[in-house]
Structures are given as structure tokens and as C-alpha cells.
């Protein structure tokens, strides 16, 4: 299963990549929302993990654009966020995201959480 991971923080990106790789995912990493929109078409991931806060274009805006584009609207989006706030979660869900994973995530169960969220769709 191919995941597009958007995370601007290199260390977090590394941990997440290793954790997901260990869980059996193929991981493509990018560092911004702009990159997500650029790479999503060529990579055709099964799911996208979006950091909520990123420079240039944040996760929310990225998600909105992904869902607005019929070519990418069907790709499930999972948010990674340090702000576990109900309002944000609600906004994300309203955009069509499948869920949120809070930071700091559990490196040993991150893959499992992603699968659970995708399965619950």
C-alpha cells in the first residue's frame, strides 16, 4: 500500500516513514502541501497523511484542494496534528478526511492506526 506522507519537520518525517515502512507501507515523503498537490498525480497513493501545520500551504488547505479536484477527491486523507482540538477535527472531517492521528503518535502502532482509519471508512 502506498502512502504519501506530507510532513515539514524532517525528524518527524523520518520517524513516521520508518514506522510506516516497518508496518509494510510504501512511503513517499514530501515537506509541503504544494508538493503534495504536485506529486499526488504522478504517485497515485492509496492514502495521504497530511501534517496539519505546514509552511506555504497547510494541511487544511491542501486537503480542501485535493477534495475539490475530482482526480484526487477519492484518495483518503488522514491528518497528523499536534492540536487535538475538537473544532479542528470537526473541520477536517467536514472536508472529507477520514480521521486525525495526534502527535506525538505512537511509532509502534502508527501503521495500525492508519489501517484502522482506512478500514473504518
Amino acid at each position, binding site marked *: 500500500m502506498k502512502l504519501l506522507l506530507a510532513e515539514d519537520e524532517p*525528524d518527524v518525517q523520518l520517524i513516521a516513514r*520508518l514506522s510506516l515502512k516497518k508496518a509494510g507501507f510504501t512511503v513517499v515523503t514530501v515537506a509541503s502541501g504544494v508538493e503534495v498537490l504536485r506529486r499526488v498525480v504522478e504517485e497515485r497513493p492509496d492514502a495521504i497523511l497530511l501534517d496539519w501545520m505546514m509552511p506555504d500551504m497547510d494541511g487544511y488547505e491542501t486537503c480542501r484542494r485535493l477534495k475539490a479536484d475530482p482526480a484526487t477527491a477519492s484518495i483518503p486523507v488522514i491528518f497528523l496534528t499536534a492540536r487535538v482540538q475538537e473544532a479542528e477535527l470537526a473541520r477536517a472531517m467536514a472536508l472529507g478526511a477520514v480521521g486525525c492521528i495526534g502527535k*506525538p503518535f*505512537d*511509532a509502534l502502532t*502508527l501503521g495500525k492506526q492508519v489501517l484502522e482509519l482506512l478500514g473504518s471508512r
Partner: protein
Amino acid sequence: MTIRNRIFTVVGVVLAAAYLQTLIVLQVENRRSAAADALDRAIWRIAKQAELGRVIVELDALERGYAAAGRHADGADHDRLWGLYERATALLPESLDAPGSKRELAAIDALMREWRAAPPGPDRARLMGRVRAEFDRLETLERGRLGDDRIKVNSQSLQSTLLTLGIPAVAIVMLLGLVAFVARILLDPLKAIAASARKISAGNFDVSLPKESKDEIGDLVRAFREMITAVQRRQREVTEAFARERQQSEISAALRVKAEREHQRLQATIETVPVGLLIVDAETGRIVLQNRAAGLFIGHEPRDDAERDAYWRAFTVTTRDGTAVDVRTWGAERVLQGQAIVGEELVVTHPERREMPILVSAAPLREDDGRISGGVVAFQDITSLYEVDRLKTEFVSIVSHELRTPLTSIKGALQLLIDEGIAADPDHTMLMSVALSNTERLVRIINDILDISKIEAGKLELNVRPHAAAEVVKQSLQNVEPIAQGALVTLGADIEPGVPEVQVDLDRVIQAIMNLLSNALKVAPPHSEVTLAARRAGDFVAFSVTDRGKGIPQDKIGLLFQKFQQLDGASTRKARGTGLGLAIVKALVEMQGGRVSVDSTVGQGSTFTVTVPVAR
């Protein structure tokens, strides 16, 4: 005796004396007049007597003349003379009242009649001689009497003169006496009283008054003395009253000074405080007093009513939830009914300034009779508080985010390393586990801080709906299972059959119960059991977490739910928490309409109970 009587008496005496004097004068005058009459009669008698004597002498001379002529007296002459004699003697007897004189006259008459009858001759001459002798005696006698009468008249005149001169003198003396008497009994006391009155007028009450006699003056003196006493008493009263008044006025002056000073202090305080203060009149709704801070904030309302309305309309005022209000009527109703407004927030937009949140308090002002005459309003610009609050939220948010990012890396790296089992030395694995558990603890602390700040900011939104109590128990236990395994503690569930659904935010109620469970697991001895029970309690369902730990002393229970309180924190490493757990539990449960309670026995363990409402 009264003075009236005395004066009557004295005047009576004087009048009686005058009357007596008059009587005496009249008496003396009578006597003098009688003596004068007697003298007149004596003179007249002497004259008549002389006439008789002359008749007798003429008779004798006629006799002798005829005898010398040798003839006998012519009868006609003789008869004429005899007629004279008869007339003289007829008149005399009534005036010759002295007995001797009468006798002499009788003798003379007898001799004359004998002489007339006697024939001429020597007998007749002898008879005539005897007559002449008798007449001489009579004359001598009468002349003596005349002298006596004269002496008597003179004496009477002298007496009369003396009386005439003496009586007025006596009258003058008596009048003087009368005046002196009146002066003594009337004027002297009056003068003394007048002098006393003058002394009293001058303020000197040390006066000597006349003796209190039993008369009008005595009455006057007594009345005067009473008046002095009364005046003195009144003066004393007036003096005392004046002294009291003065004392009062000194006190009130001192009070006034004090009040003035207090007022100045208060004024200075009112002017200095950075809080806007207004006093609004209940009747007119006008601002009757405002301090400097209020002036800086709202300016000064115009005097004119129309301008005033326009002035106030220029302000936009809303409550914190955005409802527009008329600031002039807002709160007026409550204040006029005697209620106080304590710290309510309004957002005011001044026409020329930025939006400003204010905190308003107001209280009624009452008159002495309890009538509410207005209200005092205090308001404070809380822009800075808003700013601080915003900064705090922002800070917490940033900190939590900024801390989470590196912690995510550290935690993940450690987890992956431990999972790989790459450490050559078991000690290294242990050290990495320490690093991991502390990282996790740091994450919990951040989460707790975030939670409590959200709760305190009122920004925690709850998603309350009905949930099965069993679900709450199951999920709560599931979440702490790994910790229980690590602590070698058994978890037990005790769900009362038929326990109803609860009206809660599932995540938050589980968070609260998990907090209690993890606390219980921290204190529970190895191989003991921690149970989570669910029972109905009236309109509530009670979730109780029971451990077999050391228990909590009664005096520490009150501290349990306060922030950053840790009981026995340093005793065991695994017991360390954030000190926020129970405070969060309490806040979360109370937000959902529930309560938290503790029942603990030292040495036996504790039971923490969360009650939440039954779903309807």
C-alpha cells in the same frame, strides 16, 4: 403694714396735726378777739364814765355857780343836766360788769339821788364831796381794769403772732418729715433696687438688696431676688447651653475637617484609580458624577437631551456573546431593583476608537429612606486581560505544538530503537526505556496542561449524548490494560445489571475514569486488584474506581482536586504524575453535570467515584 397703709397713716397724722393746729389758731384768735372786745368795752366804759364824771362835775359846777350867785339853781338847767346824768348812769351799769364798779356806781347813784333831794346847803356840798370821792374810787378801779385788759390783749396778740409764725414752720417740718418718710420707705429701696439692677445689667450678680420688709417694697425685693435667681439660673443654663453648643460645634468642626479630609482622600482615590467610575441619577438617567478614568473612556455626555441621545447612539455596545445592548438601559432595571451587577463583560466600540472590552460592576445607591436614587457604575478596560488571555491561549497552543514536534521524534526514535532490540547491553535497553517513559510523561504533562487551559478558558467543547455505561467501563479498562500489566495489577469490572445509559461526552468521561484508573494503578500494590464498578444512584450512575493501596489521610483529601497537588509524589517513581489529573477529572465531570467524591481508609485503600447523569 403695707406702704399704702403707712402712707395713709402718716398723711392722716399730718392732716390731723394740721387740723389741730388750725383749731389752736382759731382758739387763740378767739381769745385775742375776746380780749380786744373787752378792751374796747373798757375804753367805751371809761368814756361813759368820763361822761358821767363830766355830768356830775357840771351839776356840781352849776350848783356852785348858782350858790355863788346866791340864788337857787334854775330848775330847767338842773333838769337838763339831770337828764344827762340819768342817761349816763342808765348806760353805765351794763358795761360796769365788775362787782366793785357796780357797787360804786350804785353808791354814786344813791348819793346823787340823796344830793338832788337834799335842800341846798352844806349837806348838798358834803353829799357832792362824797359823790366825787366815790367817783374817784370808781375811776381808779376802772382804770386799773383797763390796764389789765390792755395787758391781756397784748398777751393774746403775742400768742397769736407766735402761732401765726409757728404753725407754717411746723407744717413745713411735717411736710419735710413726710417727704423724708416717703423717701425712706419708698425711694431708698427703689434706688437700691435700681442700683442692683444696673449691677446685674453689667453682669455682676453680687448685689446687696434692702431687707425684705412685709410691704410692697418687700414684695418687690422678694420678686427682684427671685428674678435674680431666675436670671442667674437662666444665665447659667444659657452659659452651659452655649458651652455645650460650642463643644458641639468644635466637635462638628473637627468632624467636618475629618470628613473633608476623608472626602479629599476619597476624591483623590476616585480620580486616581484606573477604573472608570460613574454615578447615574435614577430619575433622569444622567451621569451626575464621573471620574477621570471614566472621562477618558467615554468623554463627557452633553447637557442637552437630544445631543445626549445622539452622543450615546454613537457607541456600539454588545455583550460578550455579541448581543447588541443599549448601554444606558443595560443593567438599569436590575440596579433599580436593588441588585448589584458584579463583573459582567461588555464590548464597547467608541466612534473614534478601537473596540474595547470592559468589565462592568454596578450597585444601587440608596437614600436614608431606602429609596434607590441612582447607581454607581464601575468599569474597567480589560483589553489587556483579553490580550493576556489570547497570549496565554496562543502560548499554550504554540508550546504544545512546538513541544510535541520534537517529542514525536524522540518518542518515535526510541520506540523504533527499542523495538529493533539493537542494544548490545541490557542496561542500554533499560536506559532507552527510561528515556521513552519520561518522554511519554512529558507528553502527558503537555496534554494535561492543554486540557486544563482549555477547560479554564471555557473552550472545551463537549459532545454529550447517551452512551451505555458498560461501554464506558469497557473502553476505560481497555485503555489502561497495558499499564496494569506493567504494574502486575489485575483489573476488574463490576457492572450492576440493568444500569441505565449515561448522558456524557464519551471521550471525556473515559478520560476522567482513565485518570482515576491510572492513579489507582500507581498506588496499587503488585498482585492486587483495581476494580471499576458502575451502579445506579438515583438520577445518576456512579463509576467507582477502587484500589487496595495505602489510602489517603482524611486531612489530605481536600487537597486532592486542586491543581498541581501531588500526594506522596516522591515516594515511588511510578507514582509521579502531573498534579493536574484530578483537577481535570473534577472539571470534566462537573462540566457534564456530575460530581467526584473520594472514600478512603488509610491502610485499606481508596475509592474514587464519578457520578454522571442518567440519559433521558
